[in-house]
């Protein structure tokens, strides 16, 4: 499940991004505990509406910039699908894991 606001950087943020000001949802897609690259990771808002989509890096990493609120991160891959919910109230780095099966 989701951690919240820990200042750990599992994947480097792009230059110019200040996690003290923005809500950053970041994490890994995993299958059997191993990172899954090439998964289609989408961010859905509280009503289930599509907001954005990225492809996970070879290390399974993904990242979104969000507004305050409740979000669902859903991953789709040839090996399966999975999702994780997060409640992001304020600026900071929110670290998630999404297991696909």
């Amino acid at each position, binding site marked *: 499940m989701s951690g919240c606001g820990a200042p750990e950087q599992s994947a480097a943020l792009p230059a110019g991004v200040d996690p003290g000001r923005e809500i950053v949802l970041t994490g890994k897609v995993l299958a059997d505990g191993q990172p899954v690259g*090439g998964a289609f990771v989408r961010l859905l808002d509280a009503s289930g509406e*599509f907001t954005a989509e*990225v492809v996970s890096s070879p290390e399974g990493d993904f990242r979104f910039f969000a507004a305050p609120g409740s979000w669902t991160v859903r991953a*789709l*891959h040839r090996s399966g699908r999975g999702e994780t919910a997060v409640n992001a109230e304020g600026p900071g780095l929110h670290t998630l894991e999404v297991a696909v099966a």
Partner: protein
Amino acid sequence: MSRENVLVSAEWAEKNLDTPGVVFVEVDEDTTAYDGGHIPGAVRIDWRTELQDPVRRDFVDRAGFEKLLSAKGIANDDTVVLYGGNNNWFAAYAYWYFRLYGHQNVKLLDGGRKKWELDGRPLTRDVVEREATTYQAKEQDASIRAFRDEVVEAIGAKNLVDVRSPDEFSGKLLAPAHLPQEQAQRAGHIPTAINVPWSKAANEDGTFKSDDELRAIYGDAGLDGSRPTIAYCRIGERSSHTWFVLHELLGHEDVKNYDGSWTEYGSLVGVPIEVGAGKES
């Protein structure tokens, strides 16, 4: 317009990889995706460096487009099949761009890279070389491209379709949620615009929804089919996806893409802006 004329399935594409006169072209938001593996035989167009003027904010001109397509080995009578990542955003943008310069035989690969990858179809890193051509473009087709003055005049008069996410529409965010948010312009949307996020038109595997589903989505959102329509987003790529749906799949006759989109409109001095969810939602 029927969808057979403008869309090909992944299955059709795989069977026609070696068909003479069919050229596959990858156009991605992430322009490095091609290097990691592309459809066999496909050439790449970099939307940022090859379709945009390097100095002014505008497209490459007619001569520039001719030079680009000639160098890519694309001929006037080739059938161009465009595909890309992120649910074909930039492939749809390129599709609209090819139409703008008058290329007739252009199609989108339904579902783009995503469907292709989910299906487990072949990708290769082989270098693709095509013999250069002498491509001849037409003058830009002004009937499918909207500029800012026309957009301001369209307030309350034409359908304005804002295809960004609800948080961008309401003004909470200035860019899609996978991009950094640091930008200088105002947030919100053009007054009287309806908000139909581009994603409503796509299935989760990136393919387009059926014509019946699409008609219901835009009808329910209040799009008046008897009036002209202008679609916009942030920089004109997601709205190309919606332009494709309305003009190419549903056959609405007067549909323009406003490629200046919110990065232009939200920086104009003195134009009206609405914030919040808008009257339609």
